[in-house]
């Protein structure tokens, strides 16, 4: 493949990944890594390294906005970053010990629950929360937004809790962070997956923060995104040191993903319904099957 073709192909892969990430509400890694490996023939470790660098870019772009809006909880994010960073370093070190095909197999295994969560969508996450009650102002239904906003005034947010303005929720939303040790454990696992497989891990972290620690979905998504940049840097340095970051591919992918994310946020206003999400969940499952087969066949596929 000539360099011009490689630049254009990777830019296209990044663009598509960025659009999908914005429309489907996932990080791009679950799409970018298979695209780089299966369509562009990049070795697995190089694809993971490229994906990690793109994760830093998208996280920085989105976090910049969320921090300004006050939805990202910087105190909670920084606290959980201790666990995600340790996880990312251990994941990045472990990746060096695993051959490309088994690593593809592990990636495929992680794609399966990701596809399931994508199929179910946010409705499942919210209903799984199931804690909407008068005693729980944070998770009250939107119909009670004004009442919820009134109750938020009386929430004791504690050391790591926070509050932010949300017009959709009828004003001020306040919450207290619960079960921090469990959240730290989940953050460690998410960081580990990020370092090992080049994904952001938000698809696991966001529902977990919401369900386990009682953080509202909007704040959970913003805080997870805020953390991902630092998590990704921790493992990116390891891949960089091993010489597994390919300059042209990574640069093209980063620029493509950033442009795709911006484009996707516009497209998101017109599409992004259940049918689209489920279509890509099936696609993700098919990709998982193909990567699993490659891993099992050990290079003969």
């Amino acid at each position, binding site marked *: 493949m000539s*360099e011009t073709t490689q630049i254009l192909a990777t830019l296209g892969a990044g663009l598509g990944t960025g659009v999908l990430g914005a429309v489907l509400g996932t990080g791009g890694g679950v799409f970018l890594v298979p695209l780089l490996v299966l369509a562009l023939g990049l070795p697995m470790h190089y694809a993971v390294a490229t994906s990690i660098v793109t994760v830093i*870019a998208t996280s920085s772009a989105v976090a*910049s906005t969320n921090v300004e809006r006050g939805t990202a909880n910087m105190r909670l994010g920084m606290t959980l970053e201790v666990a995600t960073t340790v996880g990312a370093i251990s994941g990045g070190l472990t990746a060096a010990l695993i051959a490309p095909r088994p690593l593809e197999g592990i990636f495929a295994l992680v794609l399966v629950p990701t596809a399931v969560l994508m199929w179910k969508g946010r409705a499942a996450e919210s209903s799984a929360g199931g804690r909407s009650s008068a005693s729980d102002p944070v998770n009250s239904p939107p119909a009670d937004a004004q009442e919820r906003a009134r109750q938020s005034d009386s929430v004791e947010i504690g050391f790591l809790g926070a509050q932010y303005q949300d017009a959709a929720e009828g004003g001020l939303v306040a919450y207290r962070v619960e079960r921090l040790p469990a959240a730290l454990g989940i953050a460690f696992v998410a960081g580990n997956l990020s370092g090992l497989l080049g994904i952001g891990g938000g698809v696991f972290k966001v529902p977990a923060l919401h369900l386990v620690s009682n953080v509202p979905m909007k704040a959970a998504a913003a805080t997870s995104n805020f953390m991902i940049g630092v998590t990704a840097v921790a493992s990116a340095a390891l891949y960089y040191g091993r010489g597994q970051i390919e300059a042209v591919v990574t640069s093209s992918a980063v620029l493509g993903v950033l442009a795709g994310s911006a484009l996707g946020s516009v497209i998101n206003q017109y599409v992004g319904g259940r049918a689209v999400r489920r279509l890509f969940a099936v696609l993700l499952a098919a990709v998982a099957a193909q990567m699993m087969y490659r891993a099992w066949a050990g290079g003969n596929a």
Partner: protein
Amino acid sequence: MTPTSDCSRRLEHAVHYSLLVGLVLSGLLLAGGLAAAWLSPAPARPIQPQALLKTVDDALGGNAGALMNLGILTLMATPIVRVIILACGWLTDRQWRMAAVALAVLVLLGVSLLLGLG
């Protein structure tokens, strides 16, 4: 507005701008590097870690690989700068617990850099 919430607002602004500046700067370097690579095609090669000053020197000379390398390093430095800003902000605001947490994250990032680049 209390002094602490005032400090939080200032920190949010500082973090917002640090992320934005890092992103724009790295984007420009990566785009410049890609343009240079496209104008003078050469086989794609993985980045080999080298002294930062030499990378900057090569990038100033229009070397495509060095420009992209510098862009990637700038991108990697962006979240680290964000942690430093928060650590300093919390220290200044005498929020010792949060400052200690931020410093712990910095130490871990330092370990990662040492393992990777050291």
